[in-house]
């Protein structure tokens, strides 16, 4: 992996700051388009769920949760299905493009969680959640970030797989079988959505807390003054 880096010299003061090109264009494009489509998929999915908010029998029906209509997309079941079955292709396309780019560019090494990252997880958890000391920053992503980003990619793949098992339980009967049948596939699909929303929540909290430079780098690709670059 070769990462581009620049030394920026302020035109007026002559002050110098480092910048690293962290996110190639394809990654940024996929990130934002996929973010919008994930939002639509979750919103319309919740409206679809409203049509039968249960995972048990139809008679008698025991509702699991009464999800408010105002936090859903599509207005009614048919409308929500239109949104869901339209944005799923955008969601899949950006997902595939993202994965293909990561694999062929070698860029994935930046975020792929590998066994050697395991020891780094606990110190980060201790730092974030239990006021522990901040571990030294050596790479663009710490072990916990890599874990989160790798997990959400796996969840993304599973969201599509469980979705196909629910949508095409006969043509993809092997998928439904792998998930423990049609009922469980529907439950997995639902739970995976919540896991992804939990990721999004954590992701947004971190961006708000200390991520302005991170946020900008997902827009322009360039991250100014990264912690892991020695001054």
């Amino acid at each position, binding site marked *: 992996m070769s990462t581009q880096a620049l030394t920026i010299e302020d035109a007026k003061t002559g002050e110098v700051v480092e910048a690293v090109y962290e996110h190639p264009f394809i990654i940024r494009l996929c990130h934002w388009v996929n973010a*919008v489509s994930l939002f639509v998929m979750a919103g319309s999915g919740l409206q679809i769920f409203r*049509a039968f908010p249960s995972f048990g029998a139809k*008679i008698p029906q025991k509702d699991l949760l009464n999800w408010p209509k105002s936090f859903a997309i599509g207005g009614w079941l048919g409308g929500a299905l239109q949104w869901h079955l*339209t944005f799923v292709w955008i969601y899949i396309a950006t997902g595939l493009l993202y994965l293909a780019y990561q694999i062929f560019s070698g860029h994935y090494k930046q975020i792929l969680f590998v066994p050697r990252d395991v020891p780094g997880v606990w110190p980060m958890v201790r730092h974030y959640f239990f006021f522990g000391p901040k571990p030294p920053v050596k790479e663009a992503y710490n072990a916990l970030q890599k874990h989160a980003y790798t997990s959400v990619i796996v969840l993304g793949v599973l969201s599509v797989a469980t979705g196909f098992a629910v949508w095409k339980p*006969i043509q993809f009967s092997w998928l439904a079988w792998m998930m423990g049948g049609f009922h469980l596939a*529907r439950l997995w699909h639902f739970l995976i959505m919540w896991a992804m929303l939990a990721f999004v929540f954590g992701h947004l909290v971190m961006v708000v807390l200390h991520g302005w430079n991170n946020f900008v780098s997902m827009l*322009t690709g360039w991250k100014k003054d990264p912690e892991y670059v020695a001054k």
Partner: protein
Amino acid sequence: MDSRINSRKFKSLSRRELLKLTPVVALGAFAIPKLQQPLLKAGLGFSDWFSAKLFRPGHLAATFADSELTPANKFPINGYDVADPEVDFDRWKLTVAGAVQEPGDYTLAQIQALPKVTQNTRHVCVEGWDVIGRFGGARLSDFLKTIGADLTARFVTVECADDYYESLDMATALHPQTLLCYEMYDAPLTREHGAPLRLNIPTKVGYKQAKYLTDLKVTNVLEKVGYWEDQGYSEFYGL
């Protein structure tokens, strides 16, 4: 790799990189009221096209043991407007028209004379629930051959006594598990389940499986798709 650049140049470089993301704004088209419906229609149309490609004519839906059946009294009754359109069984007939060699009226006895198929299959509702029911009837494909239907035509359409209507792609109509169903749970179809004749199509979602059939037509052109489809539901919805 490291090189120097002044801050003004870096700003314009960053701006250029940001502008590359303008295609993302295209998603905003979905927020424009005039474009929203055509876009969603196109998206659903693509899903339907893809669904039709995924459909394998010889691939059977799972069948289940009698012990796995949902009890008959727990099989939901979904009518779209009336619970019972009060079909007069003595005068009932199925009127056949369209691209067939022998159009006209067919009696229930004529349909029951065809080889009978009984199957325990899953009935999946678009809402997300499902039940396993026991269905008996004649293969639609056998009936289509009896009436001399043009099997290269694209659609089979049906009209119902309760003004419901549906259409079926020919590949699904010819599927061996697609039945003109006159029995459920080894008893004649009850009125609430669509007596005297309904469709049973395990490879399709529930709303395609019309009840109270009165008319059947083989055609290449659809003037209307189906009661729910014409309100925005998927046209193909194969499982």
